């Protein structure tokens, strides 16, 4: 049974990767900073690839449209892990701009700034102004709501959104929902959507045909990656229960500054890299603070994510093993692929 399930997941992953970029190549081209993911919608199935890889003429054959996700720019951060986060964001934008086929829009999944300072937002705006994509959509990270309950964020990036900045829109048959899970966080808890937003989400999805491809995006992962570091959202289960009936659901998050993927039934979860600095694999460091590594090793570091984690006594089985040179992932720090994990519910 478990094997069959894994086969299905492998099949799904095969689909995800059926883009002319093998897994090793996919990882190799993920430069640590200034990267983003290109999402190509093809028949309602989102296909991802790192955009550092050059695009051939046929790359988008059959694709309906594409968009780019960037995350965690942390403009204003100036510590050793990356003293120039503006430059690496610029690199990301330059790469987006030189893609052979321009994405329809860009999604930024939060932590635009380090300290919610007006000057940091100004700098971000300056860099993003250079993006050729005509539309950039945002959800806030916790760093964007530090000083004023997010008022400034909302004025600048959340016009027309509801509550603390959530909203939805349709694009070429795909329904996109931007959620906010960084506001009004409770002591001892993780990310939180809150009842008001959950109610709104339920209503937003109600009445939509199950065949509508759904893309949810939020800053903190909407699946529990590592509770000790707060890498999850307390009430995400309820949000996900609203999308269960849909045939294709993609959940895009940032916050953890590394790529992780999980496929659970018809729901694919992905976290994006930061444009600013890497963070350690869950549990591999004393804390989730910025990871300081030599620049020429950063790319390798990004590939090293292995999750062996027990959630509520259920094992989070590792479906895909690291591909990197060091082989074994037992240390949690061997070189290789982002882990693809499957949460088996009892």
């Amino acid at each position: 049974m478990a094997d069959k399930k894994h086969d299905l997941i492998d099949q799904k992953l095969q689909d995800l990767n059926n883009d002319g970029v093998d897994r090793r190549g996919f990882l190799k081209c993920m430069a640590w900073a200034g990267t983003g993911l290109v999402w190509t919608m093809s028949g309602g199935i989102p296909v991802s690839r790192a955009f550092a890889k050059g695009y051939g003429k046929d790359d988008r054959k059959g694709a309906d449209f594409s968009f780019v996700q960037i995350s965690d720019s942390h403009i204003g951060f100036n510590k050793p892990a990356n003293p120039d986060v503006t430059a690496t964001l610029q690199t990301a934008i330059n790469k987006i701009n030189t893609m052979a086929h321009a994405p329809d829009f860009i999604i930024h999944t939060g932590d635009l700034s380090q300290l919610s300072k007006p000057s940091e937002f100004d700098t971000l705006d300056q860099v993003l102004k250079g993006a050729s994509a005509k539309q950039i959509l945002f959800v806030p990270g916790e760093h964007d709501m530090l000083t004023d309950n997010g008022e400034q964020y909302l004025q600048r990036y959340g016009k027309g959104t509801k509550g603390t900045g959530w909203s939805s829109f349709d694009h070429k048959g795909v329904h996109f929902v931007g959620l906010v899970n960084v506001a009004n966080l409770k002591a001892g808890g993780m990310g939180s959507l809150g009842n008001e937003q959950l109610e709104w989400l339920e209503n937003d999805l109600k009445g939509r045909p199950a065949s509508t491809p759904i893309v949810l995006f939020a800053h903190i992962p909407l699946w529990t990656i590592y509770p000790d570091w707060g890498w999850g959202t307390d009430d995400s289960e309820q949000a996900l229960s609203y999308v269960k009936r849909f045939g294709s659901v993609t959940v895009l998050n940032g916050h953890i500054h590394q790529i992780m993927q999980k496929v659970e039934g018809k729901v694919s979860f992905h976290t994006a890299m930061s444009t600013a600095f890497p963070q350690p694999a869950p549990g591999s460091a004393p804390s989730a603070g910025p990871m300081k590594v030599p620049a020429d090793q950063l790319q390798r570091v990004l590939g090293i994510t292995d999750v062996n984690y027990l959630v509520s006594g259920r094992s989070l089985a590792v479906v895909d093993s690291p591909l990197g040179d060091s082989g074994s992932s037992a240390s949690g720090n061997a070189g290789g692929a982002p882990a693809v994990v499957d949460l088996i519910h009892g």
Partner: protein
Amino acid sequence: MTSSNMWVAGVAMPVLIGMLLLFAVSPSVKANDQPSAANAAVKIDNFVFGPQTITVPVGATVTWTNADDIPHTSVSTEGVFKSKVLDTDEKFSYTFTKAGTYPYYCTIHPKMTGKVVVQ
């Protein structure tokens, strides 16, 4: 007077004053085994408040210092005190005038919690 002598004089005087101040303060600390009311410190390091529970006498001032590369806050869960956002090396102090237990957390990283016990 050479410039190096001037430097010595310039440094020596504050040092002397500092030593005098130390002598003036130390006896009162020694006479009382209770933690000094003015000296309670919590260090925020690696996303942890240390010590997680700190016990101080009534009237003590607790000072939080952020040693992380990431901003944190120290906010009472019951609304008693609230720091601004503390960037690296920034501090926040609060003086506890009433006995009791004061749980607090980092509003940015709510998994980070701590407690001040005032006796």
